[in-house]
């Protein structure tokens, strides 16, 4: 469960300071599917970074379970990311020189999973996203939708508690978008994940249990 209390994030830009998040207080229960919408520059990605332990707030606290992410150092934050949080990016962010199978395995490397188990779990993850036969393919040999499936498999192979998706369908056509969202929604239901999706796409947002609008660093619930 996430508990954000008065979270403020400011970025220094020369002499000026830009407030990306302004006293955001938010609670996200475990297992909820949340969509975050808002205009470009509104603070969506910054909020996702706070939730994903990629950055720390300037003020306020970000609580994930028993961990206060705002107070942890880079090492512990990295461990939390490795164990509890899965990421899916708009641009897929696969390692271009590694095969699909190896890309999925990269998520298990920091956990110290033995090689044989790593291989088996990565293969199973690819199977679960419908790419069981494509493990030996390089990202460049896969379509955009397939690459995003690989990215989803990479995010889920470590069985995280939270899956954060930053515009997961932003680079995909409508049909592929629906396929990916079907997949994410299915995995969310099956695994009891907390799924937080940042999106511009209302069709995607409407699939969520809860919708948040973030504008000028302020979060509002969309009823």
């Amino acid at each position, binding site marked *: 469960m996430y508990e954000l209390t008065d979270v403020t994030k400011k970025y220094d830009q020369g002499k000026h300071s830009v407030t990306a998040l302004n006293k955001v207080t938010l609670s996200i229960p475990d297992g909820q599917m949340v969509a975050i919408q808002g205009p470009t520059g509104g603070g969506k990605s910054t909020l996702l970074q706070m939730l994903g332990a990629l*950055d720390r707030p300037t003020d306020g606290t970000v609580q994930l379970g028993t961990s206060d992410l705002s107070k942890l150092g880079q090492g512990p934050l990295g461990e939390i990311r490795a164990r509890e949080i899965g990421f899916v990016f708009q641009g897929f*962010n696969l390692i271009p*020189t590694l095969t699909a199978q190896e890309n999925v395995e*990269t998520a298990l490397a920091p956990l110290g999973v033995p090689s044989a188990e790593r291989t088996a779990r990565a293969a199973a993850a690819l199977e679960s996203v419908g790419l069981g036969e494509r493990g030996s393919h390089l990202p460049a040999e896969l379509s955009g939708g397939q690459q995003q499936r690989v990215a989803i498999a990479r995010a889920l192979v470590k069985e995280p508690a939270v899956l954060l998706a930053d515009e997961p369908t932003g680079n995909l056509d409508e049909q592929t978008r629906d396929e990916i969202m079907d997949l994410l929604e299915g995995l969310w239901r099956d695994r009891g994940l907390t799924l937080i999706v940042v999106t511009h796409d209302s069709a995607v947002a409407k699939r969520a249990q809860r919708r948040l609008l973030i504008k000028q660093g302020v979060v509002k619930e969309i009823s």
Partner: protein
Amino acid sequence: MFVTYLRRELAGRRKQTAIVAIGMALAIALVIIVNAVSSGVQLAQSTVLASVYGVGTDITVSETPTAPTEGEAGAGGPQNFDFGADDGATTDGTTTVSQSRLSVDRGTTAFDATALDTVSGIDNVSAAAATLSLSNTTFDGALPDFSETGGMPTGGDAAAGGTPPSGGPDGAGGSSFSVDSFSVLGLDPADEAVGPLSTVSLTDGRSLESSDAGSNVAVLDASYATTAELVVGDTVAIAGTDFTVVGLVTASSADAATASNVYIPLDVAQSLSGLTDQVTDIYVQATSSTDIEQIQADVETALPDATVQTQSDLASSVSGSLSSASDLVKNLGLWLSLIVLAAAFLIAILFTISGVTRRTREFGTLKAIGWSNGRIVRQVAGESLVQGLIGGVVGIAVGLAGILVINLVAPTLTAGAATTDTAGPMGMPGGGGGFGQAAVEAATSDIVLQVPVTLSVILIAVGLSVLGGLLAGAIGGWRASRLSPSEALRSIA
């Protein structure tokens, strides 16, 4: 994962890998070749020096010549032949006189043989041998019997009524004189490891043996024996004493400072020359090359009047194209190697940094999924290290090929080493003199440059490639570790 990722990266970014590896390979190859050629030149220098001063001799000890005092035997001064009125034998109005002297070469000074014990007692001296370098000069003369002519010929004019000169070798009052000289080296037959005997090879008969001490036996230089028409079993007169020729030897180089026309036991040489317990040179072999400087210093302390010289002192006496090659290797080769090496390291570092910059999203993503800084640094460093090693392996191969080409071409270098030479009337080189003797002649010889491949050269190459890889990897890894995952991901959003 580390190995898989590393392998994929290097294979997937072949161009960068190839450029870094080629740069490193060129540098490593150049270092190998320069290093090996340097060793080859040093070997050539050693060959020249060994042929001149003796195999295994690390240090020579001699004494700086001083002006001889009257009647001093061991000072190597001018030689006099004094004949009394009753000397010589007279036959048919001709008086023949002959006198033979065995004395120290001019320019050489004899000193107390106890110096050998002093030197032998110095730490890390593995062997030492002393020699007495002498010159045997024989004066032969035939002149008219002055008692028959009633005194010295006056050069009177026969036409003016004087008695025409008679007697002498031409029967007309004339005279004939000859001076024969050859070098004699007195040495301890037991010392074969270092000193003169190490520079000669036996061609006939036998060499001097320990049991020859005190005996009138001699070993001749084969060339001298030929010109003097002597063979094993003949006798040769030294200072008026007959010596039995027991063997013939050939010096490794006619220019060798230790080469001599005749070799005799040291004690006999000392006795005949009147230089009892005196020597002119001590040849020293060190236990290890690293001990040479310490031994030199110790000898100089123990024997303050001695001139102590090492092989490295001698290297400066080598001249000719070998010397030019040495200078070229030391100067141009060394600097060229360093510059290319620095350039290769710089290329590796710049490419690694460039690679890290290009892979910002990649590293940001890996950090986002939980990769630690250490893991990323290891990955980057590992990739650079392998690139360096690939360069090292290729560089070693290219370097070895270069060495092979040099050895196949086998360039001939001319080398000269300053030596003392007391050539006698027969044109034979004389012995005498250690490293400290005054150089009076630069003998030249051709040396075929052979470039050796040593384990140390290979290890240096591997070490440099590892160093280059690690250096590039460390800098690249440090840069990668400084990437914040959020900024890395934001920068590509």
